[in-house]
Structure formats: structure tokens, C-alpha cells
């Protein structure tokens, strides 16, 4: 681990190593599936599709690669990277290694929005938009209530987030209780378990804006965000504008995770687990850690999604899989942490 930590000394070098690795992994993922494709076929499909090979006959392989698998792979990378980067920022802000992107209620809010839209029989786009909107609403209300309480403490904000989560969870249960069991209930349940089976090019566009912009801002502010882990008073005494940094983190992390959840459903554990993996492997230098977290998060979710769609004849829900893999893995990290003194 030490040599790995010493090797890519700047974040940019790490990015230079990570990007080709991700590209290779993505290429591998494009080959996998119900219809396995040779690397050659995938590359041909990609080049003809991306370099504008109009007029050529559109064969089945190109359709599978360009219309089904490519959006799915891109969505997995964006969802995983986004949730992980948001989780990293939250763990610093809340000075809590157990903080995850859903801390302020964004997942529960998004789940409610999606459930509501599904019950109303809306299109997938409306479901996504409703999920995104209610994710923002949930966090927004938590912040407003925190302001109204007026105690300027981060703990109050966490409690407000927990309240919003609990409320929206209850609303989801209520919707499920009254939903038509043959149609809506099944869709809601399936949506809540998470998955990228329906990811389209539009979804990727919907994800890319908040995840890439939010991630870039969090990367630029990464030094200040890491100083926040010392506590608000100390960070302020060191010259960090705590209120502004806090606002930046919450706005970026909320937009990123709301977008991720609205496309992928509730995918737990990624935002909690991956920052710890990145810390253990790449150390605490802020910009390097941010890039490592984003890259590892994307890779982790891409691998999970590959497993989800290939391990069984029927797709395994992604959120279920990340929990099955993530929870024991986290326990392993905890057991190791004693020796490494990571937390």
C-alpha cells in the first residue's frame, strides 16, 4: 500500500493512470451480456457509431453496443463516481466516517418522487424528473428546518436530514400500501431496489451535467473540504470560509446524488464504502483522494452492474447487489482499520 501511495504523487498523474484503466474495463463491460460480443465487434460498432458511419447497415451488434450497453456502462461510471465523490465530501463535512450521500434525505425523497410518478402511470422521464425534484426538496426542507431551529451546529442539520429521510420512507410505505399490487407496486418495489437496466442516452446526459460539474467543483475545493474534517472552529481559524464551503458541498453533493438516484434508483453502500477504499489505497492528499474516489466509485459500480446483468438469467437488482457485496466488504475494512489506523 505504501508504494502505491508514494507512486502517483499528483492527482493528475493518478487521473492519467485511471482513465485508460477505466476505458479498458468499460470495453470489457461492453462485451459482456446475454449476447457476448468479441472485442473486435465492439470496437467496430463503437468506431462506426461514434465516427458517424452513416449509410452503413445497422446490424444487431451495433444496436446492442451503442443503444443498450454503452449508455448503461456510462451511467454506471457516472452514478458510481458521483455517489462516491458526494460521500467523500459528506464524510469530511460531517466529520463522520459513516456519513453517506443519503444523509440529508436525498434518497428517500427521490424514492418518494419516483413512487408517486409510477403510481400516476407516468413515463420513465417523468419518474426520473420527479425523483430528482423530490430528492432536492427533501434536502432543501432539511436545510430550512435547520435554519429555523437556529442552533448553528452540524448535528442539527444531520438530525433534520434523518427526520426528512424517515418521513419520506413513511410516505413511500404509504404509497406502496395503496398501490395496485399487480402493476404499480411491482414497479415501485423494483425501482427502489435500484438498477441500470433501462439506462438510455438521455439518462447519461441527465447524469453527466450534475455529476461532472459537481465533481469538478468538489475537486477544486478539495483542500478546503479536507480541512473541514478538523472541525468548523479550527477550519475557520485556518482561514476556511466554513459557511460557504458547507453550502458548496451540500449543493454539489445533493445535485450529484439526486441525479444518480433518479437514474439508478436506490443504490446504497457505494457512497459510504468507496471513499474508505480510496483513503486506504491512495492516502489523504485531497485532490488525489477526490480523483481516486471518483475513479474507484465508477469502477466499483461498473463491476457490480456487470455482475448484476450476467450472474443470473434474470437481472439481479443493483442496489441489492451493492449491499450484499458492500456490507461485508465494509466490515472487512473495519477489521483492517485497527491495524492501519484509517478511521
Amino acid at each position: 500500500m505504501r508504494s502505491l501511495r508514494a507512486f502517483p504523487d499528483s492527482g493528475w498523474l493518478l487521473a492519467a493512470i485511471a482513465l485508460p484503466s477505466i476505458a479498458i474495463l468499460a470495453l470489457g463491460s461492453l462485451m459482456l451480456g446475454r449476447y457476448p460480443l468479441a472485442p473486435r465487434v465492439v470496437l467496430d460498432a463503437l468506431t462506426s457509431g461514434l465516427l458517424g458511419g452513416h449509410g452503413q447497415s445497422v446490424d444487431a451488434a451495433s444496436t446492442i453496443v451503442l443503444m443498450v450497453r454503452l449508455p448503461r456502462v456510462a451511467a454506471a461510471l457516472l452514478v458510481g463516481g458521483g455517489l462516491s465523490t458526494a460521500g467523500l465530501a459528506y464524510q469530511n463535512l460531517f466529520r463522520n466516517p459513516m456519513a453517506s450521500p443519503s444523509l440529508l434525505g436525498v434518497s428517500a425523497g427521490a424514492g418518494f418522487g419516483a413512487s408517486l410518478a409510477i403510481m400516476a402511470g407516468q413515463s420513465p422521464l417523468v419518474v426520473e424528473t420527479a425523483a430528482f425534484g423530490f430528492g432536492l426538496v427533501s434536502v432543501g426542507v432539511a436545510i430550512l428546518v435547520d435554519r429555523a431551529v437556529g442552533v448553528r451546529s452540524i448535528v442539527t442539520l444531520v438530525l433534520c436530514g434523518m427526520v426528512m429521510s424517515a418521513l419520506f420512507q413513511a410516505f413511500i410505505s404509504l404509497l406502496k400500501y395503496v398501490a395496485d399490487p399487480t402493476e404499480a407496486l411491482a414497479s415501485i418495489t423494483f425501482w427502489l431496489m435500484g438498477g441500470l437496466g433501462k439506462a438510455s442516452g438521455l439518462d447519461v446526459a441527465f447524469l453527466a451535467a450534475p455529476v461532472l460539474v459537481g465533481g469538478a467543483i468538489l475537486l477544486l475545493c478539495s483542500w478546503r473540504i479536507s480541512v473541514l474534517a478538523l472541525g468548523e472552529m479550527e477550519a475557520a481559524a485556518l482561514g476556511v470560509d466554513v459557511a460557504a464551503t458547507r453550502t458548496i458541498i451540500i449543493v454539489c453533493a445533493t445535485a450529484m446524488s439526486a441525479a444518480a438516484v433518479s437514474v439508478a434508483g436506490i443504490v446504497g453502500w457505494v457512497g459510504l464504502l468507496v471513499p474508505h477504499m480510496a483513503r486506504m489505497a491512495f492516502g489523504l492528499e485531497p485532490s488525489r483522494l477526490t480523483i481516486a474516489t471518483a475513479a474507484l466509485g465508477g469502477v466499483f459500480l461498473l463491476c457490480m452492474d456487470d455482475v448484476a446483468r450476467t450472474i443470473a438469467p434474470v437481472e439481479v437488482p443493483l442496489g441489492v447487489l451493492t449491499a450484499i457485496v458492500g456490507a461485508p466488504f465494509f466490515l472487512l475494512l473495519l477489521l483492517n482499520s485497527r491495524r492501519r489506523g484509517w478511521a
Partner: protein
Amino acid sequence: MKAVEVIGLSFQRPRQATPILDDIGLDLAEGETICIIGPNGAGKSTLVMCVLGLLRYAGGRVAIAGDDIATLSRVELARRAAYVPQGAHSTFAFSVRDIALMGRTAHFGSMSAPSSRDRRIADEALERTGIGHLRERRFAELSGGERQLVLIARALAQDAPFIVMDEPTSGLDLGNQRRVLAMIRELAQAGKSVLMTTHAPDQALNLNCRVGLLRAGRLVARGPAAEICDQPTMEALYGTPLTRLTNAERKGLAAYIPFL
């Protein structure tokens, strides 16, 4: 112009009748040290927070190098006043060097990272406090005394003319107390103005500095430690009978201890 000037400072929590700080006035010249001595709950930590601009005070004025701190941005303030907290705990496994480097935060842009010059300054600060060999160690694994020295090194790296220390020797053994006091004297000799709080009048006598006695939020006496820290005053300050210990070989030094 005084390096640091505190005039009529008062602080009150909402919905509380009595103020926590009431009409505090003190000043510091360049290279001067002042000890704020007082019992638990006298308002020492609150005073520290107010002087650093970390708590919004109700009345009065704090000026560093002639400028009211209320008019300074966080970055400008951090370049003028460094804070050595009363012990620190970090959530993540920061190394000693990481912690010292955080002292440089106010010296580079809000969206950039420390330069190699910042790294050099942080390393030099660690050397100056005599803990350069601990650089790669994890901050959380250090002893209390070592941690205190790291926090002082961080304040040095921050390169501010005014250093505020909240009970820098609390919880330290006698050897580490001496080390920290020697460091404070060295800082003052290097031209830094130091405000520190303590329970122990012997530290002020050791540093041969000015003291301010804080009791129930009021500064009840000010002046050179040798004049102020006499037995009746200390007994009145702590509200308990004390024994005064002296040694003929250490003129001007005295310690007060309670007895049963």
C-alpha cells in the same frame, strides 16, 4: 499602534441574564505574551474564540495590527491570528505533516492546493518545534504532548504575528509542560504576540509575562505576573485556601497548590 487591542469586549448567550464576558479590555505589543488566568467556567475559552473572531461578540472591538477583525475576511484574519486549540482529534488518519500543512490554508487560493514552498514552510515549522522526526506519523497516534507541539507547528506554518493558545499545557506531563512553555517563550522572542489561557499562575511567573485574571467573565486584575499573582489574590480568584511553594534558587517563581 498595538499589535492586538481588545476594547470593551462582551459576549452573551441568547436568553441568558448574565454575560459570559463583560467589558474585557487588554492589549498586546509585538513580541509580548499575556496569560489569562482564571478558574473553570470563567470564560477563558469564550474569550479566545471571540478574539479569534470565531464567536460573534455582542459588544466591543478586537483589533489586530490596527484593523477591527469584524472587517477582515476569514483568510485575512487567519493570516494575522493563529489558533492553537486545546487538544485536537481528527476523524481521519492525517499525518503530522498533513496537519502542519493545513496551517498554510490561508496562504494559497481557495481553489488551489499547497505549493512546494508551502510544504517547505510546514516542514520547517515542524523542525522548529523539534518534532521533524514525527513528520510521517499519524497525528492521532501521538501522545498529548507531541500533538500539542504539532498544533503549535501548524500555527507557526500559518505565519501569523498573533498566536492564541487555549490552555496549551492542559493534560500535559511536567516535561511536556516545560517544552511547550519554552516554545512559547521562543515565539515571543521571535516577535510573535501570544495570548494564552491557563489555570496555573506558575506558568505566567515562569514566562515572566503580563497576566489578566478572569473571574465570572470580568477581568479583575491586570499587570506583570510577579505583582499580580500573590497568595491572597490567587486564593480569592480560585475561592480556596492555597499553599505557596517557592525555592530560593528560583527567584520570582512560585507555585500554588490546594491542600486538604
